[in-house]
């Protein structure tokens, strides 16, 4: 649908890699930027500059926030663990928006891919879930501020299993009386990348600031 779309993908790990492959498969021109963690935080600006140098002004920017390595109860966390789980992903998202702003093409879209625990919270991932909800608010605020310039945003909320470490028991993080309506949690390549493609398409241009839930039918609120 969006053949040749210039896409800047910020993030690493299995989900980001699957999205990268899925977008390539759908004809996107993709530059993947891996955030660099430093003692002072996360540096995305340098990588974003390099990525834009490779593909030109992006029409689609996708950010997959960095995820904590494992589940830890809040009261057992060190301050450093808290920062890595909560404050760093929020700062990373904010840095992505700011670093991209000057280079976005007309009618570009920014999309964040977060787990549905953003909306419902999660034991063991209290900080990261909170960060993800903060990022959803960033998507809304960015949509409101930059909408008059023709820029749009969205959030894709996906099954926790696609985002959080496999050993965390992520599938149990969204309390539900039933499993996914579609019987599976989805995969980045075949289920989520096509939605990014859809969001990049001009036909979706009147949708901004919103969250699309793509978890196979677990989270159905409101």
């Amino acid at each position, binding site marked *: 649908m969006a053949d040749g779309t210039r896409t800047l993908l910020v993030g690493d790990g299995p989900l980001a890699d699957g999205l990268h492959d899925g977008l390539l498969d759908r004809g996107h021109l993709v530059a993947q930027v891996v955030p660099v963690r430093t003692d002072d935080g996360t540096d995305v600006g340098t990588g974003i500059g390099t990525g834009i140098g490779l593909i030109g002004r992006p029409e689609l920017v996708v950010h997959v926030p960095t995820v904590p390595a494992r589940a830890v109860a*809040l*009261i057992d966390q060190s301050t450093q663990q*808290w920062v890595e789980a*909560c404050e760093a992903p929020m700062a990373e998202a904010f840095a992505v928006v700011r670093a991209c702003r000057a280079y976005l093409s007309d009618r570009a879209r920014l999309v964040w891919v977060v787990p549905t625990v953003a909306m419902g919270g*999660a034991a063991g991932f209290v900080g990261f879930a909170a960060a993800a909800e*903060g990022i959803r*608010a*960033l998507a809304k605020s*960015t*949509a409101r501020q930059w909408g008059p310039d023709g820029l749009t945003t969205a959030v894709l909320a996906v099954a926790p299993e696609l985002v959080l470490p496999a050993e965390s028991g992520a599938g149990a993080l969204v309390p539900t009386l039933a499993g996914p309506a579609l019987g599976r949690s989805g995969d980045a390549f075949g289920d989520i990348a096509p939605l990014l493609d859809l969001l990049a398409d001009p036909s979706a241009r009147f949708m901004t600031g919103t969250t699309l839930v793509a978890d196979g039918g677990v989270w159905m609120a409101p």
Partner: protein
Amino acid sequence: MVLVTGGASGLGLGMATAMAAHGAAVVLACRRPEIGEPAAAVLREAGHDVRCVRCDVTSADDIGASVEATVAAHGRLDCMVHNAIAPTGGPTRIQDVSQDHWDAMVATTIRATFDGARAAHPHLRDSGGSMILMTSAAGMEGSTQLPVYAMVKAAQRTLAKGLAAEWGADSIRVNCIAPVADTAAMQRAYMENPDLRERLLERTPLGRIGNPLDDVGPVAVFLASDMARFITGQTLCVDGGGFLGL
């Protein structure tokens, strides 16, 4: 026994006063005792059990000391209200947000909640108590003018849900209040954003801005009380119906 951060004025003092009026012993944790001490003295003169402790919520040590002072005074902690927040400042473009503003917003909200939760948890577990966090409609609908404020308030809301999930087994409840009320901070916001009050009133079915003591205070009392014993992880919007998106 209740601890209220940012308790010297505005929403914090309104909630603290309402709780004191319902018989709670209250500690006002505030960065500026020169404001908090007189506020506590007024409440004591009215017959309430209220004291003030100095607490800069950007300091984990200060938060821990405030919790311990509260427990030392009355032997328990039934409710911690984290209300303090750095000044939000005026309308800000995302690309113009300063590092200082970001740091202050994060430090006084989500980091202070983290530090406060760790300090309060053993005492709230002992009492079967609760924690109340302050959020905002801005966190649910985004904000054109205060993007960082919207982010941290959104984070606070999901933080409450996650803590509710982790602490339920300890019989600790965690809830949020999303208020709109006339406070000194709100007056400053009106000055920096002249049409804010009118815009708020236009979208508020009850046609007025709330009062910290009479409108928000009772909701804090309710959430802290046994009447709300089966409510956790929730957000109560106390804004005259201004935000109907939940």
